[in-house]
């Protein structure tokens, strides 16, 4: 048995035991601690699967940002848990559900074992069509050239989600600032971290966007890092979350998708198809879209984390 296989076995067993913990932990808070560790391990697992772009996204989004979101929610909702526990299904019912879920898992496992050999793949097609775009990272190529319409829709789907989050605010709170972020007591340590870490984070994000064309990295990873840095600054109290009625921030939110659509429409005349890039201009255009989308996605992610506007925050801001 090779070293690689042993570490694979260890990894998957750890991931599964953490998943069991997330499912059965007594309080949501404990389950979220497990979820953060789970996200860290998933990152390693993606590296083992040779998917470095995915590993970065998982590290930033799956573990970091989702962790913050769920921690905040679990802490706020902790008083409800006793009532929740009283509603758990009876043991016999749980056993039945468990059996059915085992059946589903077994079906999926059978599919995995009987996957066709040799595996169907689109990789040769991508490799063949990558050189004209001037990119060297195939994942970026797929995201921004071959399946650009998917990426466009997906960067736009963040906006309805954000509108959805904002729309749960009460009418009276609408002009307030988002208030779901944890606001800790003043702490010199946190202030220090929030002053020193963001410059590094911004540097890493710029690096990720820049190399994204040729090596693993790209807008989503960079945007997640930027969003995390901004959230850190807001949590440390160095900056207030922006009011949701502010036009400047809303403009920033849509600039990425707008540029993407504009370039896509220009492609109808210049390259004969919506979202097609003119010959020779593909790489500069893709990099321009990446940069604009990084900003928009970062703002959208940070505002999604900040939650709906609340009045409590507005009162404090007015003091």
């Amino acid at each position, binding site marked *: 048995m090779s*070293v690689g296989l042993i*570490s694979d076995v*260890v*990894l998957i067993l*750890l991931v599964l035991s*953490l998943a069991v913990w997330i499912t059965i932990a*007594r*309080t949501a*808070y*404990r389950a979220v*601690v*497990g979820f*953060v*560790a789970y996200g*860290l*391990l998933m*990152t*390693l697992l993606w*590296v083992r699967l040779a998917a*470095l772009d995915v590993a*970065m996204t998982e*590290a*930033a989004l799956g*573990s*970091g940002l989702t*962790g*913050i979101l769920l*921690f*905040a929610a*679990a*802490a*706020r*909702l*902790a*008083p*409800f*848990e*006793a*009532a929740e*526990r*009283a*509603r758990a299904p009876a043991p016999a019912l749980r056993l039945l559900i468990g059996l059915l879920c085992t059946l589903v898992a077994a079906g999926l496992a059978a599919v995995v074992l009987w996957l066709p050999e040799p595996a169907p793949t689109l990789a040769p097609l991508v490799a063949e069509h990558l050189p004209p775009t001037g990119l060297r990272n195939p994942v970026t190529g797929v995201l921004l050239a071959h399946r650009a319409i998917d990426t466009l829709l997906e960067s736009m789907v963040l906006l309805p989600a954000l509108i959805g989050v904002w729309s749960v605010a009460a009418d009276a709170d609408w002009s307030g600032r988002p208030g779901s972020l*944890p*606001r*800790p*007591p003043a702490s010199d340590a*946190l202030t220090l971290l929030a002053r020193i*870490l963001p410059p590094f984070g911004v540097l*890493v994000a710029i690096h*990720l966007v820049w190399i994204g064309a040729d*090596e*693993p*990295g790209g807008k989503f*990873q960079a945007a*997640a*890092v930027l969003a*995390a840095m901004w959230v*850190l600054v807001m*949590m440390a109290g160095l900056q207030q979350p922006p009011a949701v009625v502010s036009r400047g921030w809303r403009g920033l939110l849509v600039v990425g998708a707008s540029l993407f659509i504009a370039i896509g429409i220009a492609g109808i005349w210049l390259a004969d198809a919506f979202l097609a890039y003119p010959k020779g201009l593909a790489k500069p255009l893709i990099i321009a879209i990446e940069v604009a989308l990084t900003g928009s996605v970062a703002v959208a992610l940070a505002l999604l984390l900040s939650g709906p506007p609340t009045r*409590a925050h507005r009162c404090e801001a007015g003091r």
Partner: protein
Amino acid sequence: MTTFLLAAAAFILATVALGLWRILRGPKDVDRMLAPQLLGTGGVAALVLLGEASRESAVADVAMVLALLAAFASVAFVVGALRPQVDPKRGPQLNPEPDKGPAPDRTPDAPTQDDNP
């Protein structure tokens, strides 16, 4: 050399994974959070070893993102423990008790009694 680096990565990973036992044991929530913290550092170490073993420089970038974000979750953990909680009976309390201070260790069903008859 490659085998040694791979073995070292597997060793570090297995070691810090043992620390995950803390998640089960507690006793306080903050003790549980120490395990992912250790896992984050161990994961970064394992990643740079893996990256060097496979001569893949991009793995170091993954490790960089992991290092940036792992510390973050711990901050969110402590900070989240201080949130004003939503009271099942009275709506939100906007100020947590000042003297209770940051005590993330909640006993499972202390804050409220059961709503069910």
